[in-house]
């Protein structure tokens, strides 16, 4: 086959060989460089934006912040005096009756403190790094925490309505925020999960 090549073809092949020997092979190198650049882009925020939306972090931190403030107030009142409650005592609403009831403790621990610990524990799990992480332990801990929290809320709502028969508006605030956190975590876990993960 080589013998069938024309002189012009042979000349052009030799010229290209010389060029390849003394110059940078621009074509392939550029292509490789371009891929490399794009590989970097693949891990940058621009690539991750679609898969890791910011809303779980923002919504989660807002809800946790509000829950932390509310449960901190309930803990403060618990350790000082129910007289410090800025809560009306009209009709079914009576914060002090709820927070001093026998159902205000679980295993001897005040529910107000349990709420505070819950929201403090949720802070690191709401950070962007935690949402980005595909570590199943982190994702499971966040989900399990919110399920335990919402389970506790159902029990406390039952206790308020049927055992104590009084409503504490600050406790109800914590209940709503715990439920909101459950919604954020449930939907956020789906939104940030790896669709290709088995």
């Amino acid at each position, binding site marked *: *086959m*080589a013998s069938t*090549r024309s002189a012009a*073809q042979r000349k*052009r*092949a030799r010229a*290209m060989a010389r060029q390849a020997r003394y110059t940078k*092979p*621009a*074509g*392939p190198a*550029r*292509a*490789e460089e*371009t*891929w490399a650049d*794009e*590989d970097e882009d*693949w*891990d940058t925020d621009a*690539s991750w934006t*679609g*898969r890791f939306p910011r809303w779980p972090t923002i919504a989660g931190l807002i809800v946790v912040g509000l829950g932390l403030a509310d449960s901190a107030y309930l803990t403060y009142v618990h350790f000082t*005096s*129910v007289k410090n409650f800025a809560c009306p005592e009209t009709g079914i609403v*009576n914060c*002090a*009756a709820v927070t*001093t*009831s*026998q159902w205000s*403790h679980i295993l001897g621990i005040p529910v107000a403190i349990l709420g505070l610990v819950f929201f403090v524990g949720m802070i690191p799990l709401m950070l962007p790094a935690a949402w980005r992480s595909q570590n199943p332990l982190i994702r499971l801990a966040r989900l399990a925490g919110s*399920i335990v929290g*919402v389970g506790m*809320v*159902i029990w406390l*709502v*039952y206790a308020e*309505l*049927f*055992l*104590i*028969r*009084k409503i504490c508006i600050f406790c109800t605030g914590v209940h709503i925020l715990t*439920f909101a956190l*459950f*919604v954020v975590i*449930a*939907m956020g*876990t*789906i939104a940030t*999960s*790896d*669709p*290709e993960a088995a």
Partner: protein
Amino acid sequence: MANTDDNQPQRGTTPVPPRGGKRTPNRPSSGGRPSSASNRGGQRATPTGGNRTAQATPRRPGAGSPSDRRRQALAQQRRRRQTLLAGGAIGLVIVVVAVLVIIKVTGGNNNTTSATKGSTNQPVAASVINKLSSVSTSQLAAAANNFKASQLTYPTAANGAPVNKTGKPELLYIGAEYCPYCATERWPMVLALSKFGHFSGLTNIHSSPTDVYASTQTFSFYKSTFTSQYLKFTPVETETVAQKPLQKPTAAQTAILTKYDSGQSIPFVYFNGKAYFVGAQYNPQLLHGKSFQEIANDIAAGKSTLASNIYANAGAIVSNICKMTDGKPGSVCKYFPKPINS
């Protein structure tokens, strides 16, 4: 020798892009990331021309290939399943809470516990009274003198009219069975009065389960009798645990209550014109969650914060009773040379 002209595009391969031209990878539409760096590396173009172009296409799998479409379909299916699961869980919580509220609104209010139907009066065992009586007067005096006024509320000195102008000086108590502060205050009162006489007919009750410091364990003075040669004790329990009327104060008693306690708060204790106090004198939280027997045991042991608070409060009451009785009996009042007041 084979034709080695690499610049000629081979049939069936992707043309080599122009020099310096940027190759556009076919990224998955879902933003899918290659599962591992090695995978990406394995797909990376080789420097050899023909192979380079041939391998460039599969290294970023296109959305169009059947395997990718299958993977995307699986991912979408999985996401749909997760969304349904999460939505179902959220909906379940909403439904459970809604059902609880509906039950409460439509009839849950009719459910009353035995505690709220009325007083759960049970006679107090003599052993409990004996335990309280075992606390010495000197212990009460020491506790009352040790506590600072800022830690406890002590009775306020008064210069009022005696309840009973003739006969023995009278100690007036106005409270209610449902009242948690009255429940708190009855413990030091029983302890203090046991130094001057003997109780009979005391019953064990708890405060309202729906008020603050719910279901605080305590005594009821209703239908009890206090026998003493030094003073007369007149308790008035105005309402039951369920807040039904029980005893009505006399006009004279109401006048005294109104004079010293314009808000008519309870408990109100009047030391025959010498002193009075309104409300609980120590923190009701200290009794929280304790059974009647546990409180009695705590008081007898004298080691807990609850016990020291009750001792101090009882000591202050004893000192003001001594003021009423002009220091009688001496065996008790010798520990209290003067009344302990705020």
